[in-house]
């Protein structure tokens, strides 16, 4: 291809007006290596473009393994929520039991306090009765 033609194509190329075919022409021109000095930069560009196209994805494509992983995850969340529900339920039971016990202790303490008070007062009465008794005895002695 003549240089004049290439220059024309290059101008079109710079303005992004070339067709794919024209770009292929340019690519071929620069591949052949005999490049005019003032077009050297384009040679680098086109070389880079074609080298870049050689790069491939070499890993194998996995389609299944990940899916099952996702599924497990879903089941795991179900299990987790069940466990959570269960623990809340049990916790609630335990808590109310504990609350009841505390209440009972409180009542027991109150009752025993009341009983103590009663017995104390009863003792006082007994003493009073005892003194009354001795008093009564002495009165009886004197009267006799």
């Amino acid at each position, binding site marked *: 291809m003549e240089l004049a033609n290439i220059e024309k194509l290059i101008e079109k*190329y*710079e*303005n*992004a*007006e070339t067709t*794919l075919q024209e*770009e*292929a022409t340019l690519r071929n021109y620069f591949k052949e290596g005999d490049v005019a000095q003032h077009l050297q*930069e*384009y*040679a*680098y*560009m086109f*070389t*880079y*473009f074609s*080298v*870049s*196209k*050689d*790069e*491939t*994805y070499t*890993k194998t*494509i*996995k*389609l299944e393994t*990940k*899916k099952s992983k996702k599924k497990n995850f879903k089941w795991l969340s179900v299990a987790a929520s069940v466990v959570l529900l269960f623990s809340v339920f049990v916790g609630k039971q335990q808590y109310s039991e504990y609350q009841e016990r505390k209440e009972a202790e409180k009542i027991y303490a109150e009752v025993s306090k009341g009983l103590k008070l009663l017995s104390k007062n009863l003792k006082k009465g007994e003493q009073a009765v005892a003194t009354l008794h001795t008093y009564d005895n002495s009165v009886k002695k004197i009267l006799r």
Partner: protein
Amino acid sequence: MNQSDFLKVVLPFKDKVFRLAKRLLVSTEEAEDATQELIFKLWRSKDKIAGYKNVEAFAMTMTKNYCFDRLKSKQASNLTLVHSNYKEKETSLDKKLEHQDSVNQVHQLIERLPEQQKIIIQLRDIEQYDFDEICKMVDMKPTAVRVALSRARKTIREQLIKKHNYGVS
């Protein structure tokens, strides 16, 4: 659509997906992960794909969007992209030792372009899609694509000239 049908559709353009992902995400590992992820996404929506005329264009659009999302989340978490694959590039360029530096420079220059121009250069100059397809993939008007492409090409060339002049003087 069973597995082998699906692979028949997908395999021809898996490298293109990978290269576009690598262009945008820079690192090879990231691009590989992205490719795997995208193909898997396609596999999951395989029933929908069966009705598409141009799965390849659809996949390229998906790749573009996926990579943009990745980049965004990366910026959000303040991670910087580390370029770790120059070595590999160089080995594939061994044959053209004399021009190696300049050719590598093209890679760096493309890396510095705005994302939009990067994608368009990748799709046009490397993958050689025609303009209609590119317009569909990037969801832009033909004139806008041409302007971006022209700008990218000019920038690369100007920067190359600049670099070489530094080298001489």
